């Protein structure tokens, strides 16, 4: 879904038909506040004008980041200047387009934003899944996992934790099983992903 925000009705409407002609689903908003009032229920990206009454495009960008929404933001402007572009990009804009723009430019930009959104959503899903798996481990298993992630051998881990290497091996097999890991590197990757979320 592409969420279009522009106070100019003709720009809003024409952009909608253009993106629809490229097979995209769109929703229009006349102001930043009206978009914020309605939580964008579907994944996708936001295309916003900068200069608008009440709340401008850059403030909208801040609000989206603050709310933790994962919708990449494409910023459009009728009077582009370098400082404005720098501000937008620094604030994490997916793209900065000067009006008027070609259909290829906006469609490509939207696709890139949608891909980025998808990737970021996938990553989030992965992190969330890893977190869930991690939550199934017992405290003792968490300790063993920490040793393994730190690159310690069974022997060293056994010594560190004051248990036998044999017990470590049993824990390790159970951890691999619970974490759906085929091998050690699989296990480490999932553990690190979960750690990133923490």
């Amino acid at each position, binding site marked *: 879904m592409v969420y279009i925000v522009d106070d100019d009705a003709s*720009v809003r409407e024409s952009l909608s038909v*253009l993106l629809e002609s490229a097979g995209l689903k769109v929703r229009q908003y006349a102001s930043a506040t009206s978009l914020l009032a309605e939580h964008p229920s579907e994944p996708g990206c936001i295309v916003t004008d900068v200069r608008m009454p009440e709340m401008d495009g850059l403030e909208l960008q801040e609000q989206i980041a603050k709310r933790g929404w994962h919708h990449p933001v494409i910023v459009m402007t009728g*009077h582009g200047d370098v400082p404005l572009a720098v501000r937008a990009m620094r604030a994490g804009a997916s793209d900065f387009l000067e009006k008027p723009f070609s259909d290829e430019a906006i469609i490509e930009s939207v696709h890139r934003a949608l891909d980025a959104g998808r990737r970021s959503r996938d990553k989030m899903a992965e992190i969330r899944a890893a977190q869930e798996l991690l939550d199934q481990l017992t405290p003792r298993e968490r300790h063993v996992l920490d040793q393994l992630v730190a690159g310690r051998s069974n022997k060293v881990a056994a010594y560190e934790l004051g248990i036998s290497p044999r017990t470590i091996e049993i824990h390790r097999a159970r951890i691999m099983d619970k974490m759906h890991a085929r091998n050690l590197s699989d296990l480490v990757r999932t553990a690190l992903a979960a750690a990133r979320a923490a």
Partner: protein
Amino acid sequence: MISAAFGDPRSSALFEALISTAVDGIIVIDTEGKIQIYNAACERLFGYGLREVVGRNVKVLMPEPYRAEHDGYLANYHSSGEKRIIGIGREVVGRRKDGTTFPMYLSVGEGDAGGNRFFVGIIHDLSEIKAKEKERADSDRRLASIVESSEDIILSKTLDGVVTSWNGAAERIFGYTAEEMIGRSIAAIVPPDLWNEEKNILRRIRDGEQVKNYETRRRRKDGGLVEVSLTISPLRDAAGNIVGASKIGRDVSERKKAERHAADLRAELFHASRLSAMGRMTAAIAHEVNQPLTAVTNYVSAARRLLGAEQPAVLPRTRDMLEKAAEQALRAGAIIRNLRDFSEKRDSERSLENINQIVEEAVSLGLAGASVVHVAIDVRLTPDLPSLLIDKIQIQQTVLNLIRNAVEAMTGWPKRQIVVSSGWDGADFVHVTVADTGPGLPPHIAECLFEPFTTTKENGMGIGLNICRSIVEDHGGEIVLMPEVEEGAAFRIRLPVSGQIEGEA
């Protein structure tokens, strides 16, 4: 004659009275120069008493060199009979008892009394007359040196325009010396195209009028022109008849040049401020024009994509999009046209204008189309307002803008009335007010009303009032939204009364 009427004068009381009451001094000496008669007036004049001088040589009353020469005069007269002074009289110098001297007129005659020859001297004191003459001469010299050393041109001429005096400044500024000009017609320094002007001035002088600070041009000896400010006054003789004219003038070429320079600077300043107003508007213009261009691009691109699908069903949709694209292209054109209307009036030309006339013309322009939306316009002008030094077109544009804004603001509103009024604060500012009975302005708009991009209109550019403000401020005035009006909105333009701009520069 005297002898015949009164007998021997020496023995008579009449003789005594004549001698003693005479205001002039009377001295009689014998052939050797010894004083025989010395009257009361002489006592006052010389400070010697009668007894002190009787019998003494008259030389005692003379300073050198007359004292030394006197014996020679007498001896010469006795031997040759040549009269140097006798019967003629002349100006000589007397010597007082205290040694000081005084100018006097001495008349000398001679007589014979029974074979004894004698000389009579009558002494008229010239001290006062001489002092007055000296005073007058000093004063004349002082005046002459003031006139001569003056930086201003000072000259005089007869009523026929013949120059009678010509000072140093006149020599320097016009290049003619006093010798060259005195006795010659003033026309020599008047450019031929201004001869009539000179004639008019002389006519006014003949009528006893003074011509003050008259700015004109004069021609130098080398043919160059000089800008002068002249004050010409009638010159009267002792009887009060006008006999000529005095002319005091100043070379104002430099001042004029400075004034022109200041005017140029001011024009440049206005130009710069207009450019900066344009600069401020550039962002607005770009934004406003790019909006419809974006829409056009989007519609056309979408239409092309749909046509690429080659399905007959898409035709109505693509037609719709192309129509909308054309509409938006026209919108962009309209914006550019609006801007051009403003930018074409770049060259500001100011002249003294009657603001009421400008308002009336703006009202008639603003009314175009107003009757269609049934708006009533009430014009309340205050008569006899001072004239303003303004750019008529720009101010008219501003008033017109306010009227059109008012008309648009009331579209679809139940009460639609506009009051346009003019007035004067009695001092420095004249004002024009445009009030409407529309919905008024929301506070967040009122706050930044004159900033670019501020608009309440569906398709407004939000720069009209910004331009109005630039224009009014260029004129040294201001534009305000009147606070606390009962209904609608009221805008007031205040413009400085002519002369204010000069003072400001």
